[in-house]
């Protein structure tokens, strides 16, 4: 989060501070939820509405400077959904239609494709939020939206610990697979199992270390464990309005198109 640096090349992984980053996180979270709710109730088969809502999501993602490559990687999450959409198309009831020589259910195809479109819009929209919001900001946003403190603390602490444990598991897996030698499926599974087993034991040791650190800071209460990052001032009326723009745009496309 080294701000400034305008015009300079952005290193991979570095955060670009854009207009979306400066919005209060609670407004962004509520705006995202509102947008996705509007998208969710779009009836199946309203292709032009879905395309327009997709364009809204992509615009927000562009403002948030989402890396296109990261977005493409996340679209892999759509793959199992495509299979399910295919099932809907093949096994759906009602009138049949012919696509590329396959006899498909018209309604099933429509519902399946609509669902995949909505899931994809969701991925783009969440990517925009995630790119423009640090974990600390996300946590303070959830707290300001009234989520219970103990749960918000869990989310914040675990998101940060995941980075530490993730690097650890990757190292352990590499070490185990080198020692196990073989390239087969069995060797790969054994390596992952060994890495995860060792990582669990280390995780329990991490709990002790974190607990010690919390006690050293002078508190054993939940709040003492998680220290939020730099805070963004709470949302004002103007912030809420700006954060509601994508949802409003999505609603407008539904009413106009």
């Amino acid at each position, binding site marked *: 989060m080294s701000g400034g640096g305008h015009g300079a090349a952005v290193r991979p992984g570095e955060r670009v501070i854009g207009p979306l980053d400066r919005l209060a996180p609670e407004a962004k979270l509520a705006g995202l939820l509102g947008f996705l709710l509007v998208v969710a109730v779009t009836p199946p088969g309203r292709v032009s509405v879905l395309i327009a809502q997709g364009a809204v999501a992509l615009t927000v993602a562009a403002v948030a400077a989402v890396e296109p490559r990261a977005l493409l990687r996340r679209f892999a*999450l759509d793959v199992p959904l495509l299979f399910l959409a295919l099932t809907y198309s093949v096994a759906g009831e009602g009138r049949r239609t012919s696509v590329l020589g396959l006899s498909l259910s018209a309604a099933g195809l429509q519902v399946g494709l609509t669902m995949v479109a909505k899931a994809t819009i969701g991925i783009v929209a969440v990517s925009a939020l995630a790119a423009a919001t640090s974990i600390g900001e996300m946590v303070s946003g959830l707290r300001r939206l009234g989520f219970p403190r103990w749960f918000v603390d869990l989310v914040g602490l675990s998101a940060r610990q995941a980075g530490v444990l993730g690097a650890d598991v990757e190292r352990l897996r590499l070490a185990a697979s080198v020692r196990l030698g073989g390239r087969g499926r069995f060797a790969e599974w054994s390596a992952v199992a060994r890495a995860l087993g060792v990582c669990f034991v280390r995780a329990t040791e991490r*709990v002790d270390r974190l607990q010690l650190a919390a006690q050293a800071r002078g508190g054993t209460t939940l709040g003492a464990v998680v220290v939020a990052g730099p805070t963004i001032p709470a949302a004002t009326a103007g912030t809420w309005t700006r954060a509601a723009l994508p949802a409003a745009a999505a609603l407008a496309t539904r009413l106009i198109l």
Partner: protein
Amino acid sequence: MHIPDGWVDLPTSATAAVAAVVAVGVAGRRVAARLAERATTLPAVLAAYLLVAQMPALPIGVGTSAHLIGTGLATALVGPAIAIVCVATVVVVQALVLADGGVTAIGLNLLANGPAPALVAAAVLWAGRRWAQGAPRRVPLLAGIAAAVATLAAAAATAGLLVLGGTDVIPPGTVAAVIGGAHLVVAAGEGVLTAAVVGVVARLRPDLLARVAPAATPAERVPGR
């Protein structure tokens, strides 16, 4: 599989969200009572562990790969209450940070991947506790079976929610058959991997496995305590 945005209608999603809040609230109270000052650190680190445990992709053949889901593993290692709280954390982080699973579907995914598989896994572990007692080799096996059954429970819950709040252009049986069938392979993989991980933990720190093998240590023990 996580349910994305826009697949299940809003009344079902909202009802699931309320049920999820209740379930996590109950589990949270139990965790707070049992872990006292560790009620944040232990579940948080374990939730991070579950997030990480889902990352390594494992080959299962025909060009596809699977990854660990972990609710069964967590239940075997720390019990259903902590497991439910951990999975809730994981589902929220996945939905808001990793774009995996819908934001409007958080309640659905939480129910299907938290309470449903955790309670089923706990029931299997409870039913098999005598069988595993005093037989260290059976402990990982029992955890593996519990994890496999838990995965099927999660798949059944997901299919059930998709049918309840989904479209009616397709017969419910077909949705259940497709999701259930796909998860048979996943469940088998989950069982094998869970058994292997628990096996490693059993070798390194048998004391951490008090939950699956009550005979191993006298008192109920929670890691890090």
